[in-house]
Structure formats: C-alpha cells, structure tokens
C-alpha cells in the first residue's frame, strides 16, 4: 500500500476547497470510508460475524428449539468425547482428508504441467477440465451413483481386468468412502489446476534455460526450478484443500447420505444432524467448535511453515 492514496493529505492542499482543521478532515474521511463498507458490512455482520461469536456462547449451553439456553460449562465437550458417532465422524473426516488433499494436489499439478505445453487441443481442455467444479453437486451425485452402481460403467470397466467387486460402490461400507473421494478429486482437480496453471506462468523461463545449460534432467528441472517457484501456489492450494476437506458435506450427503451404516458419516454431517435436524443447538455448536478450531489451526500452521521456508 503506497502513501499516495492518502486522501486527507491531498484534500488539504487542494485549492478552492475549504481548509478544514486536520481532525475534521480525518473524521470526514473515516465517515466516507465507512459509508462505502457499511452496506456490505451490515449483511456480513449479521450473517457471518455475529454467528461466529455466538457459536462460542452456544457451545457452552444446553439449548433446544423450544426453551431458554442453560449454561453448562464444558459438558457438551465431555459428551462429545464419549459420543461414538462423533468419533466416527471425526475419523471419517480425517480418512477423507488424508486421501482427498494429496490426490487432488498431485492430479491438479500434473494436469497443469500437461496443459502448460504446446500440444494441440490444450486450450480447449484447460477450460473443459474446470467444468466439473461448477456443476451442481446434486447432478454430480446423481450421475456418479449410476456410474458406481453394481451394473454400472465403473464395474464393467473393472470387469475387463477381472476386478469387478460385484456390488454398487455407494452401497458397500468399504467402497463408499473411496467412491466419495474419487468423485471429489474428479470435481476439484480442474479448479486447482487453474491455480497451478497461473502459478506455472510466473516461473521465469530463463531459469529453465540456465538449468538446461547446467545439464539438469527433466526431473531435476522440476524439483529445483518448477516446484520451488510454485511454492506460494502450493501453499494456497493446500490451505484451501484442507478447509474444503474438513467441511465436506454436500457430496457425501447426496452420494451416500453418510452410509452405509456410518461409513461415510463426516463431521459437517454430524453438526447438521444435531443442530438442524435434531435441534440440539448447544451440542451441535460444540461439534462445530471442533471443526472451527481444526480449520484455524491448520491454516495457522500452514501459514507459519510457509513463512519459515520462505526465509
């Protein structure tokens, strides 16, 4: 931010304008500044800020749809620790994240490298790959449920190499989570590929030439030139992927509804189930605090690690 945008300084030397005292100018400027932000801020405050603050109060209360809140202290949290379905949802969220994050990252980076070449058809494919990301998740889930069904395309393809599991993926408790992960990687890759493509274009060409002169192999060029130059992009991609993974809901809810059994029941669905369906506002909020804290901790840790490598 440069000092050149300092509005009051300019106004004071302005000829013809009234030379108001510095304080009055500053107050006026603050008012104008706020007037710009206010229309959005009122909505933002109501929809985001107040609920976030309110969350920390609700988590310590017993509160249902009908009746007044009753302060509980940490009871909701001790209840969470002993709650089997909460443990399952936490475990499943981690299961999902552990595969979804690296798989999407590798797929997005590989695709970006492939599309950053001179091959014919690349320009078309760059945009086509992004399309799954903006396709409604209801339609995505409907299609993939059919693809994953017992007689579906995927089992037929697997049957060619003798690997047909003979059951519908979303109906099988061991295959349901892999199915969810596969679809989410399919959907998200195009988005993160775009980020990587943009990142790849910031890599100075001269670095590659220098590396070649030094006799670096393709792998060495990638490891010593491309990868370090992409670090800011990778940082951003990892943070976004992590938050996305921790909060995953729509896709799982529509594809498997958390089942079979609780095999794909995730943290966000736990919060939805307790808070929105069963009206246990306080208890759901305690679960939400866990999600909130995990997202925050992950972001801060990744930020610090990124800072450290930068030095």
């Amino acid at each position, binding site marked *: 931010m440069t000092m050149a945008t300092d509005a009051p300084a300019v106004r004071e030397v302005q000829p013809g304008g009234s030379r108001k005292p510095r304080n009055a100018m500053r107050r006026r400027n603050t008012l104008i*500044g706020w007037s710009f932000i206010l229309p959005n801020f009122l909505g933002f405050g109501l929809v985001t800020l107040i609920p976030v603050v309110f969350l920390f109060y609700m988590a310590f209360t017993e509160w249902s749809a009908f009746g007044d809140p009753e302060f509980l202290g940490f009871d909701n949290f001790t209840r969470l620790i002993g709650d089997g379905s909460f443990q399952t949802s936490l475990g499943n969220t981690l299961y999902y994240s552990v595969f979804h994050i690296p798989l999407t990252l590798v797929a997005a980076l590989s695709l970006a490298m492939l599309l950053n070449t001179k091959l014919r058809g690349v320009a078309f494919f760059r945009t086509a790959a992004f399309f799954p990301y*903006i396709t409604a998740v209801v339609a995505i889930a409907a299609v993939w449920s059919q693809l994953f069904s017992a007689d579906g395309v995927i089992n037929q393809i697997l049957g060619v190499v003798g690997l047909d599991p003979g059951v519908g993926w979303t109906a099988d408790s061991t295959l349901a989570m892999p199915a969810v992960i596969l679809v989410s990687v399919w959907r998200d890759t195009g988005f993160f590929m775009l980020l990587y493509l943009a990142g790849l274009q910031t890599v100075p060409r001269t670095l590659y030439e220098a590396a070649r002169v030094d006799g670096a192999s393709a792998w060495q060029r990638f490891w010593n030139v*491309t990868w370090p130059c992409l670090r800011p992009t990778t940082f951003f991609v990892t943070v976004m992927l992590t938050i996305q993974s921790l909060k995953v809901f729509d896709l799982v809810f529509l594809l498997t509804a958390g089942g079979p059994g609780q095999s794909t029941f995730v943290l966000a669905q736990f919060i939805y189930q307790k808070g929105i369906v069963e009206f246990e506002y306080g208890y759901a909020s305690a679960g939400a605090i866990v999600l909130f804290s995990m997202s925050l901790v992950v972001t801060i840790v990744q930020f610090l690690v990124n800072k450290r490598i930068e030095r």
Partner: protein
Amino acid sequence: MTTSSLTSSSPSGSRTSLERSPLYPLYRVIGYMALIIAAAAVMLPFAWMIISSLKMNNQVFTVPVQWIPDPVQWSNYIEIWQKSDMFLWTRNTLFLSVVITFLQCLTGSFAAYGFSKMRFPGRDTLFLMYVATIAVPWQAYMVPQFQIFTEIGLNNTLWAMIALQAFGAFGVFLMRQYFESIPPELSEAARVDGLNEYGIYRRIMLPLAIPGIASLALLTFVNTWNDFLGPLIYLRDRDIWTIQIGLNSFIDQYNAEHALIMTGSVLSVLPIALIFGFAQRYFVEGVATTGLKG
C-alpha cells in the same frame, strides 16, 4: 500476473529446451495419450448424463453399456416438466441468482473501494476480519446462524437465501484485488480535479473493473444456482424450493426412473453450461485473481 494469458496459448517455460530434445516426438505421443485419458475421465460423467437422459428407463443399466440410445427418447424432456415442478424451481432459482448477484456485486465493489482506495483508522482491522472468516467453514457457524435467522423470522423464506449469500466476504475480496491493480495515480488525479469519492468509484473505478465485476457476477450466479446446503436448511416449503432441492426431492421420489433423473440433471446443469460456454474467460480470471494474490 497476467491472468488472461491462461486462456490463450502463451509460451510455456520449458518448451524450448524440450523441443531440442531427441526424445521430443516420444514426449508428444505420451502427452497426447495423457491428454486423451484425462479428457475421457473428465467428460465421461457428462456424456453418461446426456446419453442416459435420452434412453428408455430399462436401457440405462445394461451389460455391456449401450452408448448410443436407440430409440432416442426425446419425450423424457417433456415428461419431466409434467412430473415435477421444474418450472417453479427454475423461476425461484433464477430470481435468487439475479438478486444475489446484483447485491453481491454492488455492495462488494462498494466495500472493496473503501478497503482499497481510502485510508481511515480501523480499515485494516476490519479487512482482516473479512479475510479471517474465509478460513472459517460455513458449516462451523451454520447452527448459530440458523438460530439467529429463525429468531428474526427469516427461516423458510427466500430472504434467508438472499441474506445468506449476498454479503459474502468473497465479493469484497475479489473486487479489492481488482482495485488494487488500478494505479492510485488515477483516483489521485480525479481527487485533485474535485471529484468526490463516490464519483471516483462510479466513474473511474467501476468502469475499469468491469472484467472483475463480470468474474464476480458469474461466479456468484453459478454458486447461487448450484447451492444445496443453504436451501436445504432454510427453504422448507415446496413453493420456494430451488432447482437443486427440487431435483433432489425428485430423485428421492422417482428413484427407479434412472433416465428421467438424468434428464432432470441435464436441465439443471444446462443454464450453467451455456453461461460457462460464453464467458469461460471470466471464470478463469476470477479463479486466478482470487487464487494467486490471496
């Protein structure tokens, strides 16, 4: 950072060195094969959606897969309007998408101007709050929000969806990135010429930020059109359902009508596909802008 170069075939970093390699023809073959496999993987579900939407119901699951529908059942596209309230849902969704997109662009760019081109105490703290909430998943505070919305009577109204999506931090964030790239000398000169801040916003910043507004408008429109969890929580009555909620209930109700389910899916995706086809550049730019400078 030139985001527009993403859509054109700009020179890539490693090309020249690669082209001189004796293995270059081999690389090209491998590259094309990878490209074809990736393309098939991306496209297959969409191909399935369209093909199945034109089949008779009992033809959807056959072994082996029948890739060309015979006979072509165009009647599915008539039947779905009769069996569902598709028209009503589309109308509701269109209404929400237009109103929310308008508000998001208006208040977002207005606030972004304040954050980007004005200096006043508290500005940076306030912006930090906006940025920080991006790291907080909505699922973490949807319960207290639901409670607040219920208290003030927004629950089960279309207003809930408008309040929910029209004032997001995302619009402020994206527009600020655009304004930051506009040289401060421009607003400076306008100020000296006696234009007030609102005039600078309206006459200088807004016209220059049209590509940014376009990106924001398209991304917001698509997000609103596709939103599922928001309407699932807030829209209870059938007559205010959006297309996603409606389609989902249709799928539950007619879960054996595999072909019709695909017809509905195609219809729900079609408007987005059309918009994307005409304005892909702005989607890509929007993603690259928020992604890289974040």
